[in-house]
């Protein structure tokens, strides 16, 4: 297994290089002037052709490919991803400010994915019957036929439009006052729910939670619907295996047979897929945050795309691609750790 991990770690920089290079190629489809615009805060500079030329050379935007890439990467590593028109601040700042909101959303969304997707999946497999089979299967298929944005709009419509329970956004105005401008509130983690608890402020905690529920439901639906189905079939498959019968033949009680002998095996592929689903939710935040005007990086990226704010979109892509690569690595390594057949090669 060690050689496997080493191999994956060695591949990591290669993949990162490939990803950033690909993005650079896409970026280079734009003219040097257009690219220059992403680094400039003051649009009036562009009206001076001489200035434009000088700046193009300074930023190495006209250099042959490999050099251009190197300079671009150097800038990124220094934190300079250009200027975000959509946020009116440097891209890196825009990301730093908005990322905690997205992180909070994704972290909470993992809960239903695991609870319903895995836990319920195991239970439904144990109580196996055809009616349940069909119901779960249909739920899962509807789940992945229902685009996130339609589902989100539907949730928004019912729970806010009609019922008024779950408003869009991250915080109500009064809590925003306290959290962002008030002197009594210390933001330790920038995850509002945690900070509210750390500050002992229950009303804000509840307010934040209220705003999170609808986006969490929307973001996680497709993931847990899919996972539910996979867990169920993995568990059903495993329960039919010979070693389950062996366990029973030893007089092992049914609970241990299911939750130790069967589940431990059934979970191996499920954990991998769960990991990938969670990483996949990264893509889903764009839509979810847009539907609920939730001020995270996804919302920012969507509005940036609309405004043709290239630097923001590319910066966003670099960020999320990195997450995906690291996430995949973690998932792959944990698979190797969980399965003794792989771990002890």
């Amino acid at each position, binding site marked *: 297994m060690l050689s496997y991990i080493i191999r994956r770690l060695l*591949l990591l920089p*290669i*993949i990162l290089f*490939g*990803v950033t290079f*690909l*993005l650079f190629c*896409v*970026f280079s*489809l*734009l003219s040097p002037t257009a690219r220059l615009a992403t680094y400039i805060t003051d649009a009036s500079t562009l009206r001076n052709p001489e200035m434009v030329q000088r700046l193009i050379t300074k930023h190495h935007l006209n250099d042959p490919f490999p050099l251009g890439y190197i300079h671009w990467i150097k800038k990124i590593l220094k934190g300079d991803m250009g200027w975000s028109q959509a946020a009116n601040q440097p891209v890196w700042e825009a990301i730093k400010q908005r990322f905690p909101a997205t992180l909070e959303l994704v972290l909470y969304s993992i809960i239903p994915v695991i609870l319903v997707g895995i836990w319920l999946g195991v239970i439904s497999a144990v109580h196996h019957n055809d009616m349940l089979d069909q119901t779960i*299967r*249909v739920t899962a*298929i*509807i789940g*992945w*036929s*229902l*685009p*996130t*944005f*339609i589902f989100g*709009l*539907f949730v*928004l*419509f019912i729970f*806010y*439009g*009609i019922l008024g329970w779950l408003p869009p956004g991250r915080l109500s105005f009064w809590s925003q006052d306290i959290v962002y401008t008030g002197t009594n509130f210390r933001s330790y983690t920038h995850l509002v729910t945690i900070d509210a608890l750390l500050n002992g402020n229950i009303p804000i905690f509840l307010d934040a939670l209220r705003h999170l529920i609808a986006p969490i439901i929307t973001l996680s639906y497709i993931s847990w619907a899919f996972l539910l189905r996979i867990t169920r079939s993995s568990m059903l498959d495993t329960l039919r295996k010979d070693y389950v019968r062996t366990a029973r033949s030893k007089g092992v009680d049914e609970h241990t047979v299911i939750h130790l002998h069967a589940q431990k095996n059934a979970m191996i592929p499920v954990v991998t897929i769960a990991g990938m689903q969670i*990483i*996949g939710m*990264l*893509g*889903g935040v*764009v*839509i979810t945050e*847009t*539907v609920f005007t939730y001020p995270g990086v996804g919302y920012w*990226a*969507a509005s*940036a*795309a*609309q405004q*043709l*704010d*290239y630097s923001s*979109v*590319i910066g*966003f*892509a670099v960020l*999320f*691609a990195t997450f*995906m*690569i690291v996430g*995949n690595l973690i998932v792959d390594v944990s698979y190797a750790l969980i399965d003794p057949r792989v771990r002890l090669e």
Partner: protein
Amino acid sequence: MNRTIRKLFSNTSSLVGIVLLFIFIIIAVFAPVIAPPLSDDPYQIPRMSWDIPPQPPGFLMSDNIRDIYVVMGTEIKWDKAICGTAEGGYDIFYGLIWGTRTAFRIGLITVAFAALIGVFIGSISAYFGGWIDEILMRITDIFLSFPFLVAAMVLTTILGRGLDKVMIALITFGWMGYARLIRGSILLAKEEIYVMAAKALGVKDVKIIWKHLLPNTIFPVMVQATMNIGSMVITAAALSFLGVGAPVGYADWGQMVSFARNWIIGSPGHAGQYWYTVFYPGIFIVLFVLAWNLVGDTLRDILDPRLRGEL
């Protein structure tokens, strides 16, 4: 083959899927009859009014628009928005009907090209092995490192707005699944006893590929393709919803939903009065994708026992 078709029709869910697909095909084919275009570009949704707020179902074409048609000399074949209008007066019903054609176009074209590219790359990778395999698989990994929507977003932002750019983006980041799939199938098949048996009997390589390898590797790809049509259409709709896909007024379901977000809440006192702006295009998207997924899911079930070597 016959068994497959029989099974497809006997299973309730796939039957529902097939019926739905059939209905959509009818709609797409007879679009010019069901919703006659009122201009030269049939994919441009006609406007029933200049008003910004959506109009309820049953709304009649406003006079100032009517006058324009009269001036241009175009025959006004119909003038009632049976499903209401979206923001900007665009007739929803028309969008639904011609959007069906758009959906089929997007789904079939993107999947076809993505599958072709994927199968090509995957086959080469599996056939040559060694260095070529390593490099091609690393490239596949690189492309796979982007969340699909994010990658499509980047490409459409850079390339510009428009459904064709959306399709390019979808194809560019949609081929990897097929490459891996066919590569896996071929590698497995190469080891299969029956291939070795055929070789031992002296059967020519080409014949082996044609009669043995191809049938066993193409079917999973076809199943995958069927299931992907749905997700391609969803992603295209999502991009249009975000405003980076089809231009405003284009007959595309996703585009029709894009402004609905602002109106979903309704006006004070009339919660949900603009429900139709989301409901109609939404239900079409869901049913269309559902149809493909139901069929694909059943196909996959048919494939499964064969994979496991039973019957």
